[in-house]
Protein backbone atom coordinates (compact mmCIF):
# COMPACT_ATOMS: atom_id res chain seq x y z
CA UNK A 1 0.00 0.00 0.00
CA UNK A 2 1.02 3.60 -0.53
CA UNK A 3 1.46 6.43 1.99
CA UNK A 4 2.42 10.02 1.40
CA UNK A 5 5.29 11.54 3.40
CA UNK A 6 5.68 15.30 3.63
CA UNK A 7 8.92 16.93 4.71
CA UNK A 8 9.26 20.29 6.40
CA UNK A 9 12.02 22.56 7.63
CA UNK A 10 15.36 20.82 8.13
CA UNK A 11 13.99 17.52 6.80
CA UNK A 12 12.79 19.15 3.60
CA UNK A 13 16.27 20.61 3.13
CA UNK A 14 18.03 17.31 3.78
CA UNK A 15 15.77 15.26 1.53
CA UNK A 16 15.77 17.97 -1.12
CA UNK A 17 12.03 17.78 -1.71
CA UNK A 18 8.77 18.38 0.15
CA UNK A 19 6.97 15.13 -0.50
CA UNK A 20 7.47 11.48 -1.43
CA UNK A 21 5.05 8.61 -1.95
CA UNK A 22 6.27 5.37 -0.37
CA UNK A 23 5.16 1.79 -0.89
CA UNK A 24 4.98 0.06 2.53
CA UNK A 25 3.79 -3.33 3.81
CA UNK A 26 0.54 -3.83 5.71
CA UNK A 27 1.16 -3.35 9.42
CA UNK A 28 4.05 -0.95 8.91
CA UNK A 29 4.43 1.53 11.80
CA UNK A 30 5.55 5.14 11.46
CA UNK A 31 8.80 4.27 13.20
CA UNK A 32 9.47 1.51 10.68
CA UNK A 33 8.66 3.94 7.87
CA UNK A 34 11.29 6.31 9.26
CA UNK A 35 13.88 3.51 9.16
CA UNK A 36 13.06 2.88 5.50
CA UNK A 37 13.33 6.58 4.69
CA UNK A 38 16.74 6.74 6.31
CA UNK A 39 17.94 4.09 3.87
CA UNK A 40 16.51 6.03 0.91
CA UNK A 41 17.95 9.33 2.14
CA UNK A 42 21.25 8.81 3.96
CA UNK A 43 21.22 12.43 5.13
CA UNK A 44 18.32 11.51 7.43
CA UNK A 45 20.38 8.80 9.15
CA UNK A 46 22.33 9.26 12.37
CA UNK A 47 22.30 10.33 15.99
CA UNK A 48 19.53 11.24 18.39
CA UNK A 49 17.41 14.37 17.87
CA UNK A 50 13.84 14.29 19.06
CA UNK A 51 11.27 13.82 16.28
CA UNK A 52 7.52 13.61 16.72
CA UNK A 53 5.17 11.83 14.35
CA UNK A 54 1.97 13.08 12.76
CA UNK A 55 -0.45 11.01 10.71
CA UNK A 56 -3.28 12.78 8.91
CA UNK A 57 -2.52 15.94 10.88
CA UNK A 58 -2.66 14.44 14.35
CA UNK A 59 0.25 13.56 16.58
CA UNK A 60 0.65 9.78 17.03
CA UNK A 61 3.11 7.50 18.79
CA UNK A 62 5.92 5.67 16.97
CA UNK A 63 4.08 2.33 16.94
CA UNK A 64 1.04 3.77 15.17
CA UNK A 65 0.18 1.43 12.28
CA UNK A 66 -0.17 3.04 8.87
CA UNK A 67 -3.09 2.70 6.52
CA UNK A 68 -3.41 3.14 2.77
CA UNK A 69 -3.09 6.78 1.69
CA UNK A 70 -2.10 8.08 5.12
CA UNK A 71 -0.30 11.42 5.16
CA UNK A 72 2.76 11.08 7.37
CA UNK A 73 4.91 13.91 8.72
CA UNK A 74 8.05 13.61 10.84
CA UNK A 75 8.08 16.66 13.07
CA UNK A 76 11.45 18.07 14.13
CA UNK A 77 11.42 20.29 17.25
CA UNK A 78 8.91 23.05 16.54
CA UNK A 79 9.99 26.69 16.85
CA UNK A 80 7.06 28.83 15.80
CA UNK A 81 6.14 32.09 17.47
Amino acid at each position, binding site marked *: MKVKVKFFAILRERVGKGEVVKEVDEGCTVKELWATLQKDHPKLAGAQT*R*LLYAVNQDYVSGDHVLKERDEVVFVPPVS*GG
Partner: protein
Amino acid sequence: MFRVSRESLNLQELVDFVTDPEAGAIVTFIGTTRNNNEGRRVIALDYDAYAEMAEKELSRIGAQAEQRWKIRRMAIVHRVGPVQITQSSVAIAVSAAHRADAFEACRFAIEEIKKTVPIWKKEVFEGGEVWIGTQSGQPLSPGK
Protein backbone atom coordinates in the same frame (compact mmCIF):
# COMPACT_ATOMS: atom_id res chain seq x y z
CA MET B 1 -9.80 32.82 13.17
CA PHE B 2 -6.89 30.38 13.24
CA ARG B 3 -4.74 30.77 10.19
CA VAL B 4 -1.34 30.29 8.65
CA SER B 5 -0.62 32.98 6.09
CA ARG B 6 2.05 34.00 3.61
CA GLU B 7 0.98 37.66 3.79
CA SER B 8 2.16 40.23 6.29
CA LEU B 9 -0.01 40.29 9.39
CA ASN B 10 -2.70 42.87 10.02
CA LEU B 11 -3.23 43.26 13.77
CA GLN B 12 -6.33 45.39 13.34
CA GLU B 13 -8.03 42.57 11.45
CA LEU B 14 -7.57 40.26 14.44
CA VAL B 15 -8.72 42.94 16.89
CA ASP B 16 -11.84 43.58 14.81
CA PHE B 17 -12.50 39.84 14.76
CA VAL B 18 -12.42 39.50 18.56
CA THR B 19 -14.29 42.75 19.26
CA ASP B 20 -17.45 41.87 21.14
CA PRO B 21 -20.10 43.86 23.02
CA GLU B 22 -19.66 41.58 26.05
CA ALA B 23 -15.90 42.20 26.16
CA GLY B 24 -14.25 44.80 28.36
CA ALA B 25 -10.67 43.84 27.48
CA ILE B 26 -8.66 42.81 24.45
CA VAL B 27 -5.08 41.62 24.82
CA THR B 28 -2.84 41.04 21.82
CA PHE B 29 0.58 39.51 21.38
CA ILE B 30 2.82 40.07 18.37
CA GLY B 31 6.06 38.19 17.82
CA THR B 32 8.52 40.29 15.85
CA THR B 33 11.88 39.48 14.29
CA ARG B 34 14.65 40.77 16.56
CA ASN B 35 17.94 41.91 15.08
CA ASN B 36 20.00 39.68 17.37
CA ASN B 37 19.86 36.24 18.97
CA GLU B 38 22.41 34.52 21.18
CA GLY B 39 25.10 36.91 20.04
CA ARG B 40 24.35 36.51 16.34
CA ARG B 41 23.34 39.38 14.07
CA VAL B 42 20.03 38.27 12.65
CA ILE B 43 19.13 39.26 9.08
CA ALA B 44 15.69 37.64 8.92
CA LEU B 45 13.67 34.65 10.10
CA ASP B 46 12.26 32.26 7.55
CA TYR B 47 9.26 30.21 8.67
CA ASP B 48 8.12 26.86 7.33
CA ALA B 49 4.83 25.29 8.41
CA TYR B 50 2.79 22.15 7.99
CA ALA B 51 -0.05 24.55 7.35
CA GLU B 52 -3.13 22.26 7.52
CA MET B 53 -2.02 20.70 10.78
CA ALA B 54 -0.78 24.01 12.19
CA GLU B 55 -4.22 25.55 11.71
CA LYS B 56 -5.79 22.55 13.42
CA GLU B 57 -3.39 22.92 16.35
CA LEU B 58 -4.09 26.64 16.60
CA SER B 59 -7.83 25.90 16.80
CA ARG B 60 -7.14 23.35 19.51
CA ILE B 61 -5.24 25.98 21.49
CA GLY B 62 -8.23 28.29 21.11
CA ALA B 63 -10.62 25.59 22.33
CA GLN B 64 -8.38 24.82 25.32
CA ALA B 65 -8.18 28.50 26.21
CA GLU B 66 -11.96 28.74 26.10
CA GLN B 67 -12.24 25.86 28.54
CA ARG B 68 -9.70 27.27 30.96
CA TRP B 69 -10.59 30.96 30.95
CA LYS B 70 -13.70 33.03 30.54
CA ILE B 71 -12.89 34.52 27.17
CA ARG B 72 -15.14 35.77 24.39
CA ARG B 73 -13.14 35.30 21.19
CA MET B 74 -9.63 34.44 20.07
CA ALA B 75 -7.74 34.87 16.80
CA ILE B 76 -4.28 33.61 15.89
CA VAL B 77 -2.48 34.14 12.60
CA HIS B 78 1.02 32.81 12.00
CA ARG B 79 3.06 33.85 9.04
CA VAL B 80 5.23 31.60 6.85
CA GLY B 81 8.10 32.61 4.58
CA PRO B 82 10.68 35.28 5.32
CA VAL B 83 9.97 37.80 8.09
CA GLN B 84 12.30 40.81 8.20
CA ILE B 85 13.51 42.66 11.32
CA THR B 86 10.60 44.43 13.14
CA GLN B 87 8.03 42.52 11.05
CA SER B 88 5.52 40.18 12.72
CA SER B 89 5.66 36.40 12.58
CA VAL B 90 2.65 35.72 14.77
CA ALA B 91 -0.29 37.75 16.06
CA ILE B 92 -2.77 36.70 18.74
CA ALA B 93 -5.83 38.61 19.93
CA VAL B 94 -8.12 37.62 22.80
CA SER B 95 -11.21 39.36 24.11
CA ALA B 96 -12.81 38.75 27.50
CA ALA B 97 -15.27 40.41 29.84
CA HIS B 98 -12.40 40.95 32.31
CA ARG B 99 -8.75 41.65 31.69
CA ALA B 100 -7.20 38.88 33.80
CA ASP B 101 -8.73 36.22 31.54
CA ALA B 102 -7.61 38.00 28.38
CA PHE B 103 -4.02 38.35 29.62
CA GLU B 104 -3.75 34.76 30.81
CA ALA B 105 -5.33 33.20 27.74
CA CYS B 106 -3.12 35.25 25.42
CA ARG B 107 0.01 34.23 27.31
CA PHE B 108 -1.12 30.60 27.28
CA ALA B 109 -1.65 30.73 23.51
CA ILE B 110 1.85 31.91 22.67
CA GLU B 111 3.45 29.40 25.08
CA GLU B 112 1.45 26.56 23.49
CA ILE B 113 2.26 27.69 19.95
CA LYS B 114 5.94 27.38 20.76
CA LYS B 115 5.42 23.85 22.10
CA THR B 116 3.04 22.01 19.81
CA VAL B 117 2.29 23.78 16.52
CA PRO B 118 4.20 22.37 13.51
CA ILE B 119 5.91 25.60 12.48
CA TRP B 120 9.68 26.04 12.26
CA LYS B 121 11.89 29.06 12.07
CA LYS B 122 15.18 29.22 10.30
CA GLU B 123 17.36 32.04 11.52
CA VAL B 124 19.34 33.71 8.77
CA PHE B 125 22.24 35.52 10.41
CA GLU B 126 25.49 37.13 9.33
CA GLY B 127 27.65 34.16 8.49
CA GLY B 128 25.09 31.38 8.21
CA GLU B 129 21.67 30.02 8.96
CA VAL B 130 20.20 27.58 11.45
CA TRP B 131 16.88 25.85 12.08
CA ILE B 132 16.06 26.91 15.65
CA GLY B 133 15.56 23.95 17.98
CA THR B 134 17.56 21.59 15.77
CA GLN B 135 21.26 21.32 16.48
CA SER B 136 22.96 22.53 13.36
CA GLY B 137 24.64 19.85 11.31
CA GLN B 138 23.47 17.04 13.58
CA PRO B 139 21.66 14.11 11.99
CA LEU B 140 18.10 13.35 12.98
CA SER B 141 16.44 10.25 14.30
CA PRO B 142 13.14 9.48 15.94
CA GLY B 143 12.26 9.85 19.60
CA LYS B 144 10.24 7.31 21.53
